[in-house]
């Protein structure tokens, strides 16, 4: 009974975007001897799934999404040591790492922020490099962090060619197969994403999370 209450409180903390309560209740749950996997799946992930649904339905807005991401990240710092060795090998940990950026010369970030928040809320280890990020920085950070996914955003049609440049750079460096490269933005179409040799695009943040999941499975 107490266990169920603690799990429910963790879920609620994510829904409320409250990092303090999220860390506090995660501590308490671990002290109460609750299986860390249950805390992760039934507490934190249940909360993040619900946040995603509420955002898609229009009940939640960007702030709720960003704050939920903060709460989840804070709780994961408490939980991670207990999860070590329980669910992921070093290799699969790496597969959860995503580097995301708005490509060089473009300064629009809301779409990128939403996708980053949704991926974080879905449990991915997301490194958000910000906006107007040079290609070299994206490649360096992806290599340093052992990322499996590079997610690129551009709103401007005149910044989109730099996405193609990044893929070309990966190819000439012999690194293309190392990464899943996703592209997104208001003007990015499926056809264009295919033509430049990316691994795909999504119409919205929820679909982006699904796409990442599917591509990492395959």
């Amino acid at each position, binding site marked *: 009974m107490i266990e169920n209450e603690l799990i429910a409180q963790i879920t609620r903390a994510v829904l409320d975007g409250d990092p303090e309560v999220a860390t506090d209740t995660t501590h308490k749950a671990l002290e109460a001897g609750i299986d860390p996997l249950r805390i992760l799946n039934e507490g934190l992930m249940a909360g993040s799934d619900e946040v995603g649904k509420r955002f*898609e339905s*229009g009940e939640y*807005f*960007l*702030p709720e999404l*960003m*704050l939920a991401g*903060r709460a989840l990240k804070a709780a994961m710092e408490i939980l991670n040591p207990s999860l070590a060795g329980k669910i992921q090998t070093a290799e699969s940990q790496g597969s959860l790492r995503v580097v995301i950026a708005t490509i*060089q*010369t*473009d*300064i*629009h*970030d*809301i779409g990128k922020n*939403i996708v980053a928040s949704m991926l974080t809320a879905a449990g991915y280890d997301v490194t958000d490099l*910000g*906006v107007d990020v040079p290609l070299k920085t994206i490649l360096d950070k992806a290599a340093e962090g052992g990322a499996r996914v590079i997610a690129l955003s551009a709103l*401007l*049609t*005149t*910044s989109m*060619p*730099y996405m193609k440049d990044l893929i070309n750079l990966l190819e000439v460096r012999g690194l293309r197969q190392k990464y899943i490269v996703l592209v997104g933005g*208001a*003007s990015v179409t499926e056809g264009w994403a295919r033509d430049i040799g990316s691994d795909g695009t999504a*119409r*919205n943040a929820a679909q982006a999370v699904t796409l990442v999941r599917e591509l990492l499975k395959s």
Partner: protein
Amino acid sequence: MSDYLEILERSNTGEYITEENWDLEKVVATSRRLVKKYGLQWDRNQVVSDDPSLADAIYQAGYEMAVELGVYCRSTERIIPIKQDEIDAGITNTPQALVMGEGKDARTLYARKLGDERPPLFFGGPPGNPIPQHQLLPNIISYVQEPLIDLATCGTLTEVDGFAVRTGHPMEIVATRLECQIMHAALNKVGRPGMGMLGAQSSVSELGNLAATQPRYLRPCDSHLIPLLNELKIDNRNFSRVVNSLDYGMINASLPCVIVGGLGGGPPGSAVVNVASFLVANVVCRAGYHLLHPIHVRYVSTSTRDVLWVTSIVGQAFARNAPSIIVADIYPKSGTGTKELLYETAANAIVNVVSASHLEGCGSADGSLPNCSGLEARLMAEVALASHRSKMSLREANLWALKLLPLYEHVFTQGAGNPGLPFDQVYDLSSVQPLDFWYEMYVEVKAELQEMGLLL
């Protein structure tokens, strides 16, 4: 200039804060607190509110936000504080009338009042829609040949002579200059060479913009964009645009594209952020006029209920409390060759004109495709003028919005949107006239609007 340089210097000396903390601890927290403090709410069936106390409360909350937060410089990661007397001076000094263009084609934009007896003005063009090079001239002509259009804007070039245009690259200079030359060619072609322009749409960084500030491209009587970034942010690129145009003497149009459902939260918080954005834009963008262009966090378009509510209440808030020249950007979800585009255009035109804005449009198909033409701009102006002539009240405008919304709201949940057809499939490029099916669609919708009671 020196007072502006003093503000610019604050971007080097202001309080340091990470961008994430600016977003969450400043913008989100302040928006939430002010929405609660003023008890701000919206009603999905009151797209056009006729409650003056609500417009005043939105204004007051936005004013508090502007004074409290100032603006964030993304380049230096510092807060630029703006003193209350500077915000007040911005309100006092904002132009009440502004001449754009020259000679017989000049027009005077003015700060509209609610129920203003003077007719609104119309910018014709698809601001920012990507247009193929060979279609740009006829596309601009399709707008500026319309007698009701007063001022010109245009789409952007994404290729020049088969070479991709890249932001921050020499090609941006080439594209921006070419765009301006084509705009002048279009104005000459229709015999309106002095028409005022909102140009350099192909310039995203400062490169193209600076390269176009010469009379051959943009004249001092023209205007260009000074965007504020989401939310309440600016950077050195845009500061460069401002200092350049202050010296050159060109008109600055502020463009804060507040995201409804973004950092401001729901519609009331987003309206507060939009008010604050215009107030800080008086100071940091040195805006001659403001472009009212909130966008929907999921659907982009300005035609949704919540975005229409924001545009209306922000227009009213300024008309009542700080009269300013405001031009509402119309960005329909739908593209040319669809009836929904025309319904969306009509709804936007009515809502914004009764709420004291001038109009610019249309960025059809969310401004992301070349699916736009002068015919919807004709309807935009006709509907706006019909609303103006009939002295339409806020309450009546709300009833119109509620009648029009069900005719197009389904497009927002259609997976692929409602893009319609590109310009060259709805217009004859030689004669620059709409093809029969597109013209007949326009006639049908116009007849429907007349049957519904609009005095077109």
